[in-house]
């Protein structure tokens, strides 16, 4: 915990400009454009992207995930100290569990392991209609299937007509269409809502 505090405190001071800048020679030595051009080797249109993986976590050995892709491919995904993990909110790498679904982007190493840079666990992006609103959850119609969305206090946000996200959900209306970003609860038709985009 102390390390997290120390780390955050260092980063906070740096962001506010309270720490010194390293030698000016480092500045401008690498323009952002060059940086991403170097890492933008993507797959052909229509083909699987080798630097991306999708599927269900079937095994976990320390920080190496065994993932069964829905297209039949098997993936080995290495989580590292520089992997970001999203599971309803940014979280830690231990939160990727067996039974979870995931999307991962990273760099495919020569030994076939994907060194993950960003992992999104159980993330869903659904276009739905709101069919009922209750304290126990918001019921959605997702192409004819029922999906129940749970509100997580402190995390769930709403975007009404493209205005900035707010935590106030009291403008959700039955019958409206919405786009929902959320985290699926494995084995159920339920999700926790991260952001709901709708009109008021």
């Amino acid at each position, binding site marked *: 915990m102390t390390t997290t505090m120390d780390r955050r405190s260092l980063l906070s001071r740096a962001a506010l400009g309270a720490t010194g800048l390293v030698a000016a020679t480092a500045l401008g030595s690498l323009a952002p454009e060059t940086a991403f051009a170097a890492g933008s080797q993507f797959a052909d249109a229509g083909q699987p992207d080798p630097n*991306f993986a999708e599927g269900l976590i079937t095994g976990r050995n320390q920080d190496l995930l065994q993932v069964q892709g829905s*297209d039949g491919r098997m993936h080995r995904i290495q989580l590292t100290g520089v992997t970001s993990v999203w599971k309803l909110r940014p979280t830690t790498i231990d939160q990727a569990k067996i039974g979870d679904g995931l999307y991962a982007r990273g760099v495919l190493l020569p030994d076939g392991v994907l060194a993950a840079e960003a992992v999104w666990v159980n993330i*869903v992006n659904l276009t739905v209609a709101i069919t009922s609103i209750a304290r126990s959850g918001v019921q959605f119609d997702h192409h004819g299937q029922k999906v129940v969305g749970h509100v997580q206090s402190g995390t769930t946000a709403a975007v009404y007509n493209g205005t900035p996200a707010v935590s106030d959900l009291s403008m959700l209306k039955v019958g409206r269409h919405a786009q929902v970003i959320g985290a699926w609860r494995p084995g159920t038709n339920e999700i926790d809502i991260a952001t709901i985009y709708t009109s008021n």
Partner: protein
Amino acid sequence: MAGITAEASWFCCGNAWGPCGSAGHGACGTCNSGNMQHAWPNTSDSCYAITHPDTCGISAMSRRTCGFRHATTSLCTGKRVVTSIADCGPQTDLFCGERTCCGGNCASNRVIDFTPAAFSALGLSLNSGLSPVSIDVA
């Protein structure tokens, strides 16, 4: 067609986990979340009848069929991907007039939906869900 500026989102396909389990392989029968693909609102008459981009005042939405390639540049990250059509979508008419910005660049109306592989290849975060892009013929 000169590049069109529009909002992009992402969707899952290919009978994967969770609510994607019944999504199937899309209107073209080829769609997989891990492939470099996208959905287009005018792949056929019956597709157009669902997405109705004309409701949002977009009249020049070209008819393009399965496998057609588009090159898309994120107006957020500057990254570019080439993807092929694998499904019908998004439902443009549900979100007419919606506007998304990144930096100084803004775009209105949803006319393209990417697989998670393609959306993240644009350097975009899956949890932010929406981003302005510029679309061209590849």
